[in-house]
């Protein structure tokens, strides 16, 4: 049964509480941040109300451009790896026995429950020279002496993929579970090797799901703050790190606010894109 559309103001009352919460804790702070981004920075001190584009103009610097493109590139790498690894993994998972599915999903959910700090320190220990997995390889005779695998780009990538992978699987899982298993069988009876059938049927049939998942993981990875600092060198620091640095250590609130506004806009437009792709998926 279709619920009746609301007619009077009172019919909207269930929305009042979330609306107030959203206004007080999101719209107002975000508005303040947008305002501050246009304020004038006082040299060596605070900032004064004004309307200048000084902070946004700094986006044109090569330093900012470098950090921005690194952040986008890192997020894209993380999303790409997660989707490439997660897609076949989820496909097999959705077809596995019930108890196998449940144990994997519980394991993945438990990774989600770990905080970024714990993941960061766990990986920095695992990749360290003194206590890391390279010692295991030495013990197995595959390496001469232990090496430090952190801090470097690979370590940042590893930690972030580890963190984003459960999200990837959870987003892909419903679409995979809904996929008609006879599609693959049909492709096989029509002369397709199972691997070819996977690439010519399952992947294109779920194209929109893949795109939507990629964008979601990309957005998730774009906001990473702690892992690049724990596992990387300063050149591996992302836009979020730069924003904190400007706001807290350099006392340049207007510039930090401008970068934050920019990051939010990029993220929102990507989410919008994901929704658009998702709606096209539902239409067909």
């Amino acid at each position, binding site marked *: 049964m279709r619920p009746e559309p609301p007619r009077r103001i009172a019919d909207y009352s269930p929305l009042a509480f979330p609306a107030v919460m959203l206004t007080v804790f999101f719209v107002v702070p975000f508005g303040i941040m947008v305002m501050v981004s246009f304020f004038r920075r006082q040299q060596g001190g605070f900032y004064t109300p004004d309307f200048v584009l000084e902070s946004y103009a700094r986006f044109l610097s090569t330093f900012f451009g470098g950090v921005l493109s690194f952040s986008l590139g890192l997020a894209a790498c993380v999303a790409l790896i997660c989707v490439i690894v997660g897609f076949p993994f989820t496909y097999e998972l959705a077809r596995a026995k019930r108890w196998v599915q449940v144990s994997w999903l519980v394991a993945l959910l438990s990774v989600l429950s770990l905080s970024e700090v714990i993941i960061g320190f766990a990986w920095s220990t695992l990749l360290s020279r003194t206590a890391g997995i390279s010692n295991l390889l030495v013990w197995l005779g595959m390496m001469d002496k232990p090496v430090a695998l952190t801090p470097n780009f690979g370590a940042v990538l590893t930690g972030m993929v580890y963190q984003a992978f459960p999200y990837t699987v959870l987003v892909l899982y419903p679409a995979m579970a809904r996929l008609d298993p*006879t*599609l693959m069988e049909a492709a096989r009876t*029509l*002369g*397709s090797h199972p691997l070819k059938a996977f690439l*010519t049927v399952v992947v294109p049939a779920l194209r929109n799901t893949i795109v939507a998942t990629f964008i979601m993981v990309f957005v998730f990875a774009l906001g990473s703050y702690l892992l690049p600092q724990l596992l990387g060198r300063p050149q591996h620091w992302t836009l979020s790190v730069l924003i904190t640095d400007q706001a807290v250590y350099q006392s340049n609130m207007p510039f930090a606010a401008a970068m934050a506004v920019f990051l939010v806009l990029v993220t929102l437009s990507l989410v919008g894109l994901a929704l658009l792709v998702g709606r096209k998926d539902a239409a067909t």
Partner: protein
Amino acid sequence: MSGLVLEGISKRFNNVAAVDHVDLSVPNGTFVCMLGPSGCGKTTLLRTIAGLEEPTSGRILIDGKDITKLPAHQRDFGMVFQSLALFPHLNVGENVAYPLRIRGVGKADQVKRAEELLALVDLGGFAGRPVSKLSGGQRQRVAIARALALSPKLFLLDEPLSALDAKLREAMQVELRKLQQRLGITTIVVTHDQREAMTMADLVVVMGNGRIQQAASPVEIYRKPVNSFVADFIGSTNLLPVRQAMDGQGVSAPGGTIPGVALGAGRDQATLSVRPEDVHLVPADQAPLTGRISFIRDLGASIETFVDAGGTQIVAVTSPRERAAFQVGDTVGLRLDPEACRVLSS
């Protein structure tokens, strides 16, 4: 021999036999219907033939060649699935051309062959349409055209018409049969609808409990069922417990005797199967078997009369023309045609 041969095929899932020692040989060009209640193993057997399930034991031969271990994609069989399994990301033409694309057929030849196949199933000019815009019957045809694209040696269909409404289903049955006769292709259809099997098949394979109960022509299956499972599953039938009559003439049943029927040597009791249309109602003094009419169902085209003969219900189907002046509660005589009575092994 040429054609498909199954030798002792068994398929077990967790030690439960879905298919149990099935032997069957199908000459080339035969239209086979595998018929049975749900869970009888008919779909599993079809999937085994297609190579989607590996048999636990037994051999599958085609034209004398053992293909038991051959993977599905090397068997050159066309299969239509119950869900149809049309690829949602491809349009009608691309769906039909998919097996050609996989084989590396050139683009122009793909388009040409897809058009031919679509014309074969009366869907000429539909190549550019998305699959989601088709009706159920049209999707059905697309699935058939796609399965025929590689001119398969064997054409397998798993409950292909079950999603269609009754009228369309009957039309498609006739069409499928005509198509098969035109192409002369060996076809195996799995169905639980006996009318479908009777309409289309050269050979009806009745399955129950993972075994073949009887494999014969539709008329033989209907007229000469080998056991009560087949008799009961194919059409409706009256099953009467009978024993050898004292005087040796015919058999005695609840409610009287049936002359002219012999149980065969060495048996003194059995189950007798007689079709409702072979039971004739006569005045009570004109037949040695009598009963009381408990219910009359007038269906317009035919009349079903339920008779209680000594505790066993016997149904007689008559045409309205010969509707006698019998009422509910009357005692009537039942004349059974001895030729139409079938003694079943129990």
